[in-house]
């Protein structure tokens, strides 16, 4: 027998992950909806998903590869850039989408109950498509440059997972904060733009570590993606192992992720009233 008890005096702050699991159909279909709708009535349709990373890669290669001549440690620049870009653009996508996600779904939030976490989570699922396309580019470039990844590749799943978790951590925080403070609608695009420079996507992390004082490097690594992109690239392309600074990023991801879930739960209670 299914039983629901709600008591205003006995609130417990539990994550209730089992309930979330019961709603898995919902977040899959919401992700499906977003994907279906994304390129509806566009002339190029799904081709857009390929055009955007291709254009970015081209610009990076021309500016940082040919003009600035970034030191990639012998790795062909397009290959170097695509590893960073794939992880970063997934993160940026989830941030962009989930920040506004609850506000975008407010009609639903006000009319029916479901664990609200489903909404930002479904955005993370939508991003998998672009993530996969990034890997496709990576594979093609590897074939073109006849690049064979080293044994580090076994760590790739770990860094993929870390990318997803850090995207979710920041995304869930932002989605909960945006409900209360619409200011964050303006913060997100800024964060994404700023983050692209503050993440070793176009250049190697050593550039930062070698040229800046330690305290500045630590601040740099407070960007969760700084460590993740570094590790992501290392697991595919090899080279120097992630610096000890990267652990600042990893620790931060853990803290952000757990606190995001609890903060979201807290806001969830009043979500329908304040959205």
């Amino acid at each position, binding site marked *: *027998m299914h039983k629901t*008890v*709600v008591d*205003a005096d006995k609130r417990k702050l539990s994550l209730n992950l089992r309930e979330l699991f019961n709603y898995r159909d919902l977040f899959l279909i919401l992700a499906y909806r977003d994907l279906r*709708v994304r390129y509806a009535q566009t002339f190029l349709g799904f081709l857009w998903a390929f055009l955007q990373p291709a254009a970015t890669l081209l610009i990076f290669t021309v500016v940082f590869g040919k003009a600035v001549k970034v030191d990639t440690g012998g790795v062909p620049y397009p290959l170097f850039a695509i590893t960073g870009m794939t992880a970063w653009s997934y993160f940026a996508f989830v941030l962009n989408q989930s920040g506004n996600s609850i506000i975008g779904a407010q009609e639903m939030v006000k*009319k*029916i*109950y479901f664990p609200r976490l489903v909404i930002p989570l479904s955005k993370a699922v939508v991003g998998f498509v672009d993530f996969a396309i990034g890997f496709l580019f990576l594979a093609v470039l590897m074939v073109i440059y006849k690049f064979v990844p080293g044994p580090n590749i076994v760590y790739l799943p770990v860094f993929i997972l870390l990318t997803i978790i850090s995207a979710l951590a920041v995304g869930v925080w932002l989605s909960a904060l945006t409900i209360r403070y619409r200011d964050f609608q303006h913060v997100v695009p800024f964060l994404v733009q700023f983050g692209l420079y503050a993440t070793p996507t176009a250049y190697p992390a050593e550039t930062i570590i070698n040229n800046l004082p330690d305290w500045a490097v630590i601040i740099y690594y407070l960007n969760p993606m700084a460590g993740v992109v570094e590790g992501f690239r290392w697991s595919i392309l090899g080279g120097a192992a992630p610096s000890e600074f990267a652990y600042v990023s990893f620790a931060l991801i853990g803290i952000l992720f757990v606190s995001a879930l609890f903060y979201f739960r807290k806001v969830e209670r009043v979500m329908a009233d304040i959205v």
Partner: protein
Amino acid sequence: MSDIAVRVENLGKCYQIGQAKSGDFRQSFGSWMDKLRGRGGEQIAESKEFWALKDVSFEIKKGEAVGIIGRNGAGKSTLLKILSRITEPTKGRFEINGRVSSLLEVGTGFHPELSGRENIFLNGTILGMKRREIKAKFDEIVAFSGVEKFIDTPVKHYSSGMKVRLAFSVAAHLEPEILIIDEVLAVGDAEFQKKCLGKMDEVSKSGGRTVLFVSHNMAAVEGLCARGILLGEGRVSKIGSSIEVITSYLSVNENYEANLSKRVSTGSKRVIFTQMQVLNEEVEFKIVEGCFQVPFYSNIKFILQLKKIEAGGILYFAITLRDISGVKIVTFDNLYSNTGIHMNDRGNVQVVECFCEKLPLNPGNYTVDLWCSDGYETFHNIENACSLEIVANNFYSTGKMHTREKHGFLNIINTWKAANTEH
């Protein structure tokens, strides 16, 4: 195992008014700074509390269909929102035994770019159905909606009627143990409404399911629900059989607002009703709890006070009497007789009266709707502007009297005589 489906104990919901719902940083930061400086007290005093729901307690047994009625702002929607877990109560507790589906609107989450088929899956999942459940019932849902031909067309090309039918079909195929429904029947055409009511009736009666139903449609509440709960100003003002509760809703007219311009109403408001009186010749009928006490077969005069906001010219009026289920009994109007009343002074208060000799309604409760127009545009339309209780009297001097339940609404004077030929 208990046979209680829903138990609500001292439920209360408080909203802060006068305070921004989703503030900006400065505000939060400011109040946070104030707190640090120990000035928190002021902040609390500034924002006012509004209890949308207070001390609400009731129990609903399994398999029971209960109608929740009350005026706008009585707390019906807040109660449903709490019971369907959309928002949390400020006080009290409730427990629900069984799987709940709540329908606070039809078509929640419908996306215009998706096809009818995709929207069935989307909406069904949002309402809490499992994918395979929807698959199994898919054909049935499509057949019920009557939009088979367009099932693979994006919903944005549907007419609004088709959208509603599709949305309701999904909702009608939910199989929860407890169903919570808000006013969703206010949409769709009359025929489809009937179909939906039939389906809900089937659900609650044969399915043995518990239904909580909020509506302004008293006929629907009466037909569907055996019990009723009347809410007024956030509190339970009556629980009982649905007929009892509906009667008291319509006659008590809780917080009876004599000022008609403040009533909930529709129309362009270029001319508005401000007050009404119901008179027997020259004397106003006695009012008991906001209900005019009109003895059977009285001469009745309605005096309507109007205020013109901008329109002038010829005005048409209608007064419609309904029974407690909302069924229209009779309309007095000057539209069909082309006897509109000429009004010329802008902005002035004007009075019109409507006289009806010997009102032939049988004893019972009736409500009065008012309507005003220039014949093209509705200026003001107030449902349930006041209520009348036709009071039994000794009309026949026999001590016997017709009643609405036994003899119908109307009493037309008739005479009888023997018509057989004498031998």
